[in-house]
């Protein structure tokens, strides 16, 4: 769950600030982190499709994501609204100079559980999203190398390599391609210790939904080792004022008007 929430945060809070071409890889990453954030709030309704690439079997769930920027720090909520995971809710609170604070609410438990932040590479529930995939880590968790810019689908893009500082990471590096206009990552390739790509993420159909808030309406994460895929198809994304009280662990069990 937290991985998924991170993904949403990463995708919704990456930047629209136009980066200057002499920026380093880390500066681009910092710009991306601070962009696409709305102090009013963003509400996204989406279908999550889990696909077994061998059997072809798929499962579809509905989800609602609410994000807001509060004085430069992001708050995010993610909730499954159907299936046996209905009501399962993740709250992410970004903090300055500290790890993000995260809570997972399961209706069967009844109270939110604080989540330990060290499991950044673990999958969220049964999806293919992981914390690292979804931007759960801080910019400072990596070292960066900027590669030559590329033009993909007619769009100018930055290309970065980033290397995990953690020695326990199962990845050796990520290759990230960000669209220059929106600063949304349109492709991330994850290299294992063996040097092979073991996971990939692609996003497309990027739309401006408000005051320079860009949202990818399609995200696809593929686990090449386990042959599984998770697709995020956004049905609706709007920038609108949201209740700041939602972002409190003590009300994760309550329904939202936005559901």
């Amino acid at each position, binding site marked *: 769950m937290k991985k998924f929430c991170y993904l949403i945060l990463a995708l919704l809070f990456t930047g629209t600030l136009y980066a200057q071409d002499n920026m380093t890889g880390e500066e681009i990453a910092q710009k991306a982190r601070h962009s696409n954030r709305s102090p009013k709030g963003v509400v996204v309704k989406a279908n999550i499709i889990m696909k077994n690439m061998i059997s072809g079997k798929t499962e579809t769930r509905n989800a609602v994501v609410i994000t807001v920027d509060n004085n430069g720090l992001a708050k995010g909520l993610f909730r499954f609204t159907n299936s*046996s*995971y*209905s009501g399962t809710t993740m709250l992410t609170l970004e903090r300055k100079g500290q790890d993000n604070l995260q809570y997972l609410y399961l209706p069967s438990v009844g109270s939110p*559980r604080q989540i*330990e932040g060290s499991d950044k590479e*673990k999958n969220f529930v*049964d999806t293919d999203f992981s914390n690292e995939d979804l931007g759960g880590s801080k910019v400072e968790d990596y070292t960066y190398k900027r590669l030559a810019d590329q033009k993909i689908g007619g769009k100018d893009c930055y290309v970065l390599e980033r290397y995990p500082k953690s020695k326990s990471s199962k990845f050796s590096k990520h290759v990230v391609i960000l669209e220059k206009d929106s600063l949304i990552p349109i492709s991330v390739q994850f290299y294992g210790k063996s040097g092979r790509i073991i996971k990939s993420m692609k996003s497309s159909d990027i739309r401006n939904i408000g005051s320079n808030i860009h949202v990818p309406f399609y995200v696809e994460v593929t686990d090449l080792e386990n042959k599984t895929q998770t697709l995020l198809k956004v049905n609706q994304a709007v920038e609108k004022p949201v*209740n700041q009280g939602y972002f409190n662990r003590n*009300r994760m069990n309550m329904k939202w008007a936005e559901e």
Partner: protein
Amino acid sequence: MKEKLYKAAISLAVIFIAATQSYAEISVSGNLETRNQSGIHEGDVYRNYLKADIELGENINNTVVKVLLRAEDDSLRPEKDTTTRNYLSSDYDGPQRIYLREGYLSHDIYFDSVIDSINIKMGRIIYTWGNADEQKPVDILNPQDYSNLYFTPIQERKIGVFSGSASIFFTENFFLEGVVIPEFKSSEIASEVFVPEEIRQLRTNAIYNLQAPVEPDKNNKKNSYGARLGLTLFDIDMHLNYFYGYDRLPVNKFQFTTTSSLIVTPEYKQIQMIGFDFQRALFWGITLRGEGAYYTKGKYFYYSDKSPAGNLLLSPIGQDLAKGGTGSIEKDYGEYTVGFDDQDFIFDDLYLNLQFNQKVIVKHEETLAQEKYINHILWNVKYFMVNKKYCISTKGAYNIKDKSLYGNGEFLVKPADNLELMLGLWIMEGKEDTDIGQFDHNDMVYIAGKLTF
């Protein structure tokens, strides 16, 4: 009774159809669960259980309406019959019932200031206080259905209570909640199989003359009150909890009669509880959690009925009754549960939850029937496989003092995203005179299915 169930089922169907067709904006969700529990030793069928939860919801701007209807057909529960007193409940319905488990209006007022929002809620509400699992000392606002004992998880046992609450959220790290409960609703003990020896004795031993429970304030003269303060400090989530109101389980009041029998009258007492709970994520995926409650009023403990000569009159309870007592004494009482869990213990997808629970009678007397300390170790271990499509798990509790335990093993499979099938067993071990050991002969297997829609 079946006619009643059919009518209720038709009512639910009408509500469902009306909700889905006439009012498309009303959300409808729910689940259907079916379960069979059968004894291992004698092969008796303990329980055939069919349950449907239907949740209706509607959002109108900052107001949310939630209605959770539950329909149950539970062969474990006895027929409604006031002459046998084989159930304990303020409004018992029998094996088949449809009731409003939870239903409320919730309204948010939000601000752009130090107060993020105020939430006001009124209706039949299920509260969850505390941070421990299953043995939760501060989670006492709702009555529970104990008919299937601890084999049903606590969240499923709870019954909504008519109440109003106001919560003030100051940033994401601080909040205040006040609760008023202008209704008394007792917990339910209504089982054909899992009847504690104490209750069995009261019902069957000729020495006892069991009276109808004395239920408090039918006219709502006395409310119950709760308050909670939540705070996050140094990444420790904590709450201070307070409750003043009615206990959901009664205290039996004993009285001698001239015919050498004992009149037993269950009474619901007002209790006062001050509680604290916390949680803190540590490292390696480990989270520390716990909660504790201290009762300064309303907790009564029975005197022992043991005497050297086996004469009840010479026992501590006999002597107390002879002096005009009621067989029990009020004591300060404490209970806490503390433990940790780890989502990926040792290897991926292995969930471990270990807790220690202790109950303490303050200023304990040797003449009491209950020991000063009751200590339990609780465990819950799950291993998920094949992208969480399969799960094997075990959970249970072990009483350190009397060496009794109850434990569960289960295999769960998810053939579809909204369907869970379970096969498992419960074992109870211990001496016959222990709380758990008295059910030693009730070891059972179960098969269950749950469909979510």
